[in-house]
């Protein structure tokens, strides 16, 4: 296993198969769409959770 990994990293190829290049591009664009579209919403969730935690710490039942 270790030997296989070493062999893998030793290769100096710089070629990307076109199918994988397309997949990488699709993943990158989707990641940005998700970040831009839902970034604020996700931040909102974390913000809410933080508020609740702060409240809980300040006003323990």
């Amino acid at each position, binding site marked *: 296993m270790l030997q296989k990994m070493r062999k893998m990293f*030793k290769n100096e190829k*710089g070629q990307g198969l076109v199918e994988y*290049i397309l997949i990488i*591009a699709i993943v990158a664009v989707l990641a940005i769409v998700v970040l831009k579209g839902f970034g604020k919403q996700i931040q909102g969730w974390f913000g809410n959770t933080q508020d609740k935690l702060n409240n809980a710490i300040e006003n323990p039942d």
Partner: protein
Amino acid sequence: MSSINGIFLLSVLLIAAITDLVRRKIYDWLTLPALVLGVAINTIGAGWPGLGFGLLGLVVGGLLFLPFLLVEGMGAGDIKLMAVVGAFGGAGFVLQAWFYTAVAGGLWAVAALIIKGKLIATLKNLLLWIGSMLGSKRKPAPFSEQDALPYAAFIFLGTLAALFLPPVFVI
């Protein structure tokens, strides 16, 4: 990124792009010293935090394309080159560069496939591949090396874009 980092990084990437275009290789004699140099420059510039910054960038950069190396869809030269970008620019920068690289490579791939008249066939095969990953029994045709692209050229262009274009996202 400081201008000295930028100049060193772009020089390394340009050499890699040329060797990849001409010989289809990104040589270890270029990438391995560049990894050390990137981390060293950051360490000299900012001390221990600089060392952490460079090493984290190196690891993040190396991980970005690792899955594609494991399925033998990319060469290890590309993985090491992306780690170089991280070693010089840090984790935040390498993510920006990765995004621009991915888009540049994708656009070129689509254009090249259109010219060869293979776009529809390739996209269909890609859908079959995604289906087979999700458990479908229909197998895609094996991906051929015939249409492989010299990815170092896109890593160079993507890094150039990340240096001079506005950031795509803020971390």
